[in-house]
């Protein structure tokens, strides 16, 4: 069966719903969101804490309420949402779907990929040991606890100490699980100031920095974990039945890579400009597929810019035909985004992330020949957390031959 739409949005999370809603507001007629879960809304559906919607809806909602509100808004604007429907293939002219209605094809003038990001699970982090039950990611734990309401365990160790890690601790507490340790291999946690203190007092969970999860032990169920202090080599065992791997996000990039869009090695998402254009004219990207991860409201606001561009290019003017430049990163700079720019057109802003803690480094925009076009100081960077690039550097990107960004 084959149908047609103006725009197909792949993924009904905050980015996809926000983009679709905005497309309708901009006069695009037929907008379809494809969501593989039975309910649209994305990750906020199972994030039961307040703070959602601050930047986009200008109020604070719980994750599930926020998800519902985003769906309500999209539907009220005439967005069509197909749930329990899986996009099995994307090409430049449309998508192929599987659902209980069978296999369908939707031809589209433009496609917005908004497939989000996931946390790296245990194998991707190469944690050795047995393979018993009781090993989670935060996303799995939250669905387990809040959506399916299944029993989790009694004592947990949380791996990772970024924002989402503290969300995992709250979920564990809600599920009646004691967090006996929070471990990060990095020298400091990567969340807001005071997070370590909050963790210790709220969950009575000691935060072990510079510590790695060396091994998981247990036959049917996790029985213990071996922790290792990386500086001293000290090794000890914690008796737990649950391990939660948190953060270390990676874009859910499979469909994007299969369609053959140019990827960025740092973000592991498609290379895009500030408004989600990719190396394929009809294919746009919104949300955490661009670079992992920002909060739902940041993503939703950014997706509006993508939708504005798509609407304008469908209704008014063709996509730009100027040449593009792809940015490369050097040094402890993991990525800078936007990472694909129209030559001569600097982005309105840029975000970046480093792979290590850095202090008082210099961010430079450099030409292929090594000439520094612009530079500014970064006071402090934190791995797993993005920050806004200094305006002086952002304004130079893609201009005067600047195609390398480095941190020295």
């Amino acid at each position: 069966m084959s149908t047609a739409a103006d725009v197909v949005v792949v993924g009904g999370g905050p980015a996809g719903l926000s983009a679709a809603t905005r497309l309708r507001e901009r006069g695009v007629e037929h907008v379809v969101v494809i969501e593989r879960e039975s309910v649209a809304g994305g990750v906020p559906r199972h994030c039961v804490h307040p703070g959602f919607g601050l930047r986009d809806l200008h109020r604070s909602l719980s994750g599930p309420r926020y998800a519902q509100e985003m769906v309500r808004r999209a539907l009220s604007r005439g967005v069509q949402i197909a749930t329990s429907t899986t996009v099995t293939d994307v090409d430049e002219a449309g998508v192929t779907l599987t659902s209980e209605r069978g296999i369908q094809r939707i031809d589209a003038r433009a496609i917005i990929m908004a497939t989000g990001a996931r946390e790296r699970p245990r194998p991707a982090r190469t944690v050795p040991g047995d393979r018993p039950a009781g090993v989670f990611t935060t996303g799995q734990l939250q669905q387990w606890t809040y959506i399916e309401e299944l029993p989790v365990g009694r004592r947990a160790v949380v791996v990772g100490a970024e924002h989402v890690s503290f969300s995992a601790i709250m979920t564990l507490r809600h599920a009646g699980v004691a967090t006996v340790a929070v471990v990060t291999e990095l020298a400091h946690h990567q969340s807001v100031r005071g997070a370590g203190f909050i963790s210790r007092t709220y969950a009575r969970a000691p935060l072990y920095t510079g510590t790695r999860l060396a091994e998981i032990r247990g036959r049917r169920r996790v029985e213990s974990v071996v922790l290792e202090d990386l500086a001293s080599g000290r090794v000890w065992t914690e008796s737990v039945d649950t391990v939660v791997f948190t953060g270390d996000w990676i874009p859910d990039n499979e469909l994007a890579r299969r369609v053959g869009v140019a990827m960025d090695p740092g973000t592991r998402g498609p290379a895009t400009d500030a408004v989600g254009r990719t190396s394929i004219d009809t294919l746009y990207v919104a949300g955490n597929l661009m670079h992992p991860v920002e909060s739902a409201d940041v993503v939703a606001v950014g997706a509006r810019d993508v939708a504005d561009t798509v609407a304008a290019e469908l209704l008014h003017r063709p996509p730009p035909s100027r040449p593009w430049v792809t940015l490369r990163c050097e040094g402890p700079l993991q990525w800078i985004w936007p990472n694909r720019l129209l030559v001569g057109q600097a982005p309105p802003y840029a975000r970046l992330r480093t792979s290590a803690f850095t202090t008082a480094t210099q961010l430079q925009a450099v030409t292929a020949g090594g000439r520094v076009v612009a530079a500014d100081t970064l006071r402090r960077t934190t791995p797993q957390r993005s920050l806004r690039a200094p305006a002086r550097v952002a304004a130079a990107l893609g201009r005067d031959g600047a195609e390398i960004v480095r941190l020295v």
Partner: protein
Amino acid sequence: MSESLIIEADVAVIGAGVVGCALARELAGFDCAVVVLEQASDICEGTSKANTAILHTGFDCVPGTLESQLVHRGYELLAQYARDANIALDTTGAVLVAWDEEQAASLPAMAKKARDNGYDATVALSASQVYELEPHLGEGVTGGLRVPGESIIDPWSVVAAYATEAVRAGVQLHLGTRVQSIRREDGRYVLTTTSRTVRAKWLLNASGLSSSDIDGLCDHHDFTIQPRRGELIVFDKLSRSLVNSIILPVPTARTKGVLISPTVFGNVLLGPTADDVSDPEATATTRDGLSRLRAAGARIMPALLAEETTAAYAGLRAASEYPDYQVRRHDDENYVCVGAIRSTGLTASMALAQYVVALMAEGGFDAAPVARLPVPVMAPLGETQRRRYLDDELIAQNPTYGHVVCHCERVSEGEIVDALTGDVAATGLSGLRRRTRAMNGRCQGFYCAARVVAMMADITGRDVASLTGLDS
């Protein structure tokens, strides 16, 4: 279970791995009562669940051994069975890659060995021909040998198909049943187990890592199992395009070495290590083993290491102090030991079963052949098969095949229901993974595990605490 419950059978098979299930399937073609006793709570839970998933031509076996003979014959039998049973099988071929002059010089001897094993289709390759076949190999290839018949197979569906065919034909499969003692009484074996007592005329020992222990319970001490651990890393499906065939190292006396192989599920395997361990339950991966694999992989195919890891696991090979399988019938005993079946056991399984029944016949087993049931048709799990989510006609008949629950592996609700309600239904989460691929993908359950576990609890009536080991 009542202590007084006694099962009478003609043949008792100990072990429901690939060998035990192949024996049960073979015996289902005879007019006899067969009972299979398995200590684990599901089939395929021991050494059969963690191997390299290759259907071997046997080109590199030790010529003249029973293993060589059975692998050679088993290859044809299982290839045909897999086609009949809709089990994923891809004849990708293999390339034996030499990385220095000494290895390159040994390749003609490998080709001769292949001929001695009855396999004469190998093709000598220059370094540039190797790179043509496998352009993503690292630098330094000096030559190669192509083995066109080497194939990749879904190892779990093989065991499930054997078991399903056997059970449909009336074989009794008793899971969670560990044999504690064996004695002979009035010409019959009497097996005391953790659940029932079994009396049988014939006893077949296919207990894998326990095969020398069970041999001991029968007062034989012909060999000792020396578990050899093999750790493997499974790379993301996005790496599949890097690899065209099975990439083998030139073997050493100890092991076939670290290989890189595509899987029928669309991933790429790197492994195995080969470490002797004393604990027959030491299936944990190790930091050292995984880092050795990554180092080896980085030399063989650097681009592979840039891809995400989907899984890492370790399996134990039931090796012994002898280089060959330990298959033996003792005179005046209706007992056949089918022990020390190493990693080639998957390929050899059907030939091995025929061989064992022939041994039994020599010892007086005279059950008449009966008509076989049709080969069971397994769910299509291979990436080159027509998966359920792509089967429009089937979805029209049963829409649950269009409702994808596990997104990474694209497993539908209908497939999960099938695996939990079939003739040899999954009894736990790992069995469900093996039968459907659900939760085996890149996210390892980030998206689907909560839903799949809730579904399993609903369908089986078991509580989640027991499914996830929280009751232990």
